[in-house]
Structures are given as structure tokens and as C-alpha cells.
């Protein structure tokens, strides 16, 4: 029975990440169109348009993957077939797996079983996330290598150099967060953010570690090789960088890895800094406002509200990343490496030092795990 519940939760988290990936593709296209004052993709249609209504974006949502999956899978001559297949697999598989540790709700109470809404309840959640994101580098470097093309190889190695440079900054920012909460368990961190500071303000991570939030955001965007850090796959300049020689579904897997990583960065930021599934003042039995006023809410509705809050925050941060992508120009590669090693790394270390000293000095107000 427990295994069945675990299986259901893993399935739900996998479905969430699949939906978010596909929806982000549409949000990216329409959102970028909005920013650039044009219409975007609106030509897809079902059954030749004989339906009396227009399904709108759903057509594009369905048409895009279906089209890509039906394209021919071209493997360039001299390329290693196994590595050519393995690279997109390694690019996407760890990212899907990362989602399993992100808590998307508090508990679901059905009868007398209490289900913790986190697919994989590890007490080393943050380390698992970091490990999986590090595995994503393999996909990039293998993709470049397996293509038997000089440009793809260089694109792949440059991409992986960028990714590993920003992983250090990301790791250090997360150390500061772990310092504040004293635990690696993501569900425990989210639960700790339900406390109230001075009885009024919800104790979200952003009030404790604002610099770590900025560093994590920047490093996360650089990890996913999105603009302004997208030189390895600069769309208008290098065709597709390390995945030039990929076509059909393998290319769609690489592109989907891009969007899933956006979702992962958004999920991490939400979980660690903005309260995850926490709705301010909402507890398991209802709202308890600071003035003493409270509203009783049935537990199922509480769960639904919390899951909705998680999804709303997730989309907000995905939208923010899309905004940043379409607003800023691309960083040159040496500027990129400069930012990673000479700015983010020292700032993250300084943040760590200041946080550690402050936590020891002010034992009273920090969040207890």
C-alpha cells in the first residue's frame, strides 16, 4: 500500500513536470511574442479547421511535439550511435528526477492515511537536487562529442565549462540556505517557513537570505544556458551549438531539458525562498490571521489551496525567467566566466560568512528546523 502511494506520488510529480515543460514552451512563444509586439504561433489547427471553435494555443501545444517526434532521426556519419542516443537521455532524465524531491503540498488526508505530498521523501533533498543538476552536464558534453562535428564539440565543451562554473556559486548559495534552516530536507524547510516573524510577516526565506536568492537565480539561469547566458546555443549565431546534429525527438528532448530546467530553478527558488506551498496564515485547520481573526477551512480545501499556491509561485518565477530572457542581451563568453568566478563566487562566500556570524550572534530570531 505504501509502495502504491509512493508510485502514485512519483507519477504525479512526473506528470507535473511534463505538463510544466510543455506549457512553458507555449508561454515562451506567446510571451516572447507579447514582449516583441507580435502575435506568435497561431497557425496550428485540427482537422483542417472545420471545428466551429478555435482551440487556440492547445493546437500549438499538441502540434509542436507531434511534429518533432515524426521527424527523421539523422545520425551524422562517424558519430557514435550509443552516445548519440545517450546524450539527450542524460540531459533530461536527471532533470525529471529532480522534481521528485520538490514538495508540492503539505499533507493529503484521506480517511485515516496522511500522505506527505512529496514524491521522494529524502532527508538530503538539496544534495539530491544538486547532484541531479550536475548530471545534466554530461548530456551537454556528450551531445557535443557524439556529433562528430568540430563546432558541436566546441559548443558542448564551452557549455559544460559554463555550467560547472556556475554550479559552485549555486552550491555556495544553497549552503547559506542550509545554514539558515539547519536541514537539507526540502519539506522541512518549507514547513519551517510557515512560522511568523514578529507575529505578522511569514518567515519566508527571502527575508533571511536575499543575496543567496539573487545568486541562486543568476546561477540557475546560467546552468540552464538561457539568455543572457546562452552562448553555447546562441540561436541566431551558432545554429544550435552542441545539439546542432540532433534532429527529431532527440532535439525536442534537448529543448525540453531547457524548459524543465527553467521549471526546476523556479521550483527551487519557490521552495527555498518563497515558502513553497505555504499560503500566508493558512494552517492545516484554516486561516489564522494575526489579529486573532480565523476562518476554519476543511483539510481537503487547505491541501488544494496549498498546491495551487505552489503552482502559482512556480509559474510566476518561470514567467520572470522568460521576461529576463527576452529583455537582456547575450553575455560574451569571457564576461560570462568572469561573472561566475570573479563575482558570484566571492559574493556567495561573503554572504556565507556574514550569515554564519549573524546566526551565531542572534540566536534568537533565526528559523529553527
Amino acid at each position, binding site marked *: 500500500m505504501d509502495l502504491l502511494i509512493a508510485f502514485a506520488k512519483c507519477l504525479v*510529480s512526473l506528470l507535473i513536470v511534463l505538463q510544466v515543460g510543455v506549457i512553458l514552451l507555449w508561454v515562451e512563444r506567446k510571451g516572447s511574442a507579447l514582449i516583441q509586439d507580435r502575435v506568435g504561433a497561431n497557425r496550428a489547427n485540427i482537422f483542417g479547421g472545420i471545428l466551429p471553435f478555435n482551440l487556440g494555443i492547445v493546437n500549438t501545444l499538441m502540434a509542436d511535439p507531434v511534429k518533432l*517526434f*515524426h521527424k527523421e532521426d539523422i545520425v551524422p556519419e562517424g558519430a557514435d550511435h550509443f552516445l548519440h542516443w545517450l546524450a539527450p537521455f542524460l540531459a533530461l532524465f536527471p532533470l525529471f528526477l529532480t522534481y521528485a524531491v520538490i514538495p508540492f503540498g503539505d499533507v493529503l488526508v484521506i480517511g485515516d492515511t496522511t500522505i506527505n505530498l512529496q514524491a*521522494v521523501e529524502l532527508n538530503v533533498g538539496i544534495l539530491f537536487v544538486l547532484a541531479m543538476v550536475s548530471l545534466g552536464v554530461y548530456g551537454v558534453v556528450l551531445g557535443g562529442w557524439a556529433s562528430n562535428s*568540430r563546432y558541436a564539440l566546441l559548443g558542448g565543451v564551452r557549455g559544460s*565549462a559554463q555550467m560547472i562554473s556556475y554550479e559552485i556559486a549555486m552550491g555556495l548559495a544553497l549552503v547559506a540556505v542550509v*545554514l539558515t534552516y539547519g536541514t537539507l530536507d526540502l519539506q522541512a524547510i518549507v514547513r519551517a517557513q510557515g512560522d511568523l516573524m514578529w507575529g505578522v510577516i511569514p518567515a519566508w526565506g527571502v527575508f533571511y537570505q536575499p543575496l543567496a536568492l539573487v545568486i541562486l537565480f543568476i546561477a540557475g539561469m546560467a546552468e540552464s544556458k538561457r539568455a543572457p547566458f546562452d552562448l553555447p546555443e546562441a540561436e541566431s549565431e551558432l545554429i544550435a551549438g552542441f545539439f546542432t546534429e540532433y534532429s527529431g525527438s532527440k532535439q525536442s*528532448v534537448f529543448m525540453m531539458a531547457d524548459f524543465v530546467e527553467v521549471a526546476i530553478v523556479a521550483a527551487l527558488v519557490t521552495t527555498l525562498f518563497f515558502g513553497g506551498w505555504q499560503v500566508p496564515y493558512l494552517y492545516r485547520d484554516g486561516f489564522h490571521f494575526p489579529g486573532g481573526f480565523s476562518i476554519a477551512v476543511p483539510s481537503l480545501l487547505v491541501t488544494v489551496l496549498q498546491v495551487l499556491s505552489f503552482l502559482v509561485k512556480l509559474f510566476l518565477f518561470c514567467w520572470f525567467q522568460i521576461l529576463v530572457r527576452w529583455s537582456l542581451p547575450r553575455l560574451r563568453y569571457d564576461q560570462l566566466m568572469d561573472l561566475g568566478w570573479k563575482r558570484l*563566487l566571492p559574493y556567495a562566500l561573503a554572504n556565507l560568512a556574514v550569515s554564519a556570524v549573524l546566526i551565531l550572534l542572534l540566536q534568537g530570531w533565526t528559523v529553527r528546523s
Partner: protein
Amino acid sequence: MEQSYAAVLISAGLCALVVAIMVGASRLLGTRTPNRAKQSVFEAGNRSVGEVKTHRFPVKFYLTAILFIVFDVEVVFMYPWAIVFRQLGWFGLAEMAAFVVVLGVGLAYVWKVGALEWD
């Protein structure tokens, strides 16, 4: 804690299945008409010459990777310290500060010597 690790295996199995299907979809659903022009690698119209995999490689990638290893190991050592930080108190802070200062000197040296320049 075996319960949670069973969930990792289940999750890994599900994700691997889905991604494998996605990667293999073109093989199943797409056409297969190999053609010399299609099989050749992209070089904007020119035919590419020479071996790719034994071609010489810029050494700065190796340098970046080595620096990454050093600092990543430092970060890994910081995680257990961060968890038990409050129990260790000022003494723990001083110990970790000594560790970070040693590595910080390393970072400063690498910065000064120019190994972080990329051109």
C-alpha cells in the same frame, strides 16, 4: 529509511522510461532515408576535413574543470558543517573559516595569476 529510497528507484524507473520513449520516438515514428548530404556534419556548405576527435584541444577547459573540482569539494565539505552549525557554535565557525581562508588564498592566487581569464 528504505522507504524513501524505494521511492527514488520508482521515480528513476518512471523517468527513465518516459525519457527513453521520448528519445526513441523518432526512430519509431519518423522516416529513415539516409542520404549522403543529410549524414554529413554541418559546416555551412563546406565539406569538413580532418578528424574531429583527435584534434587538438584548448587547455583552458581542463584548467576550468580542475578549478571546479577544487571549489566543488570545498562546497561539499561545507554542507555537513552547515547542518550542525548551531551545535558547533563559534568554534565550528573558526574551523570552517580557517578552511575557507586557505582555499580563498588559493582563489586569490588563481585570480592574480590570470588563470580565470578567458580569451
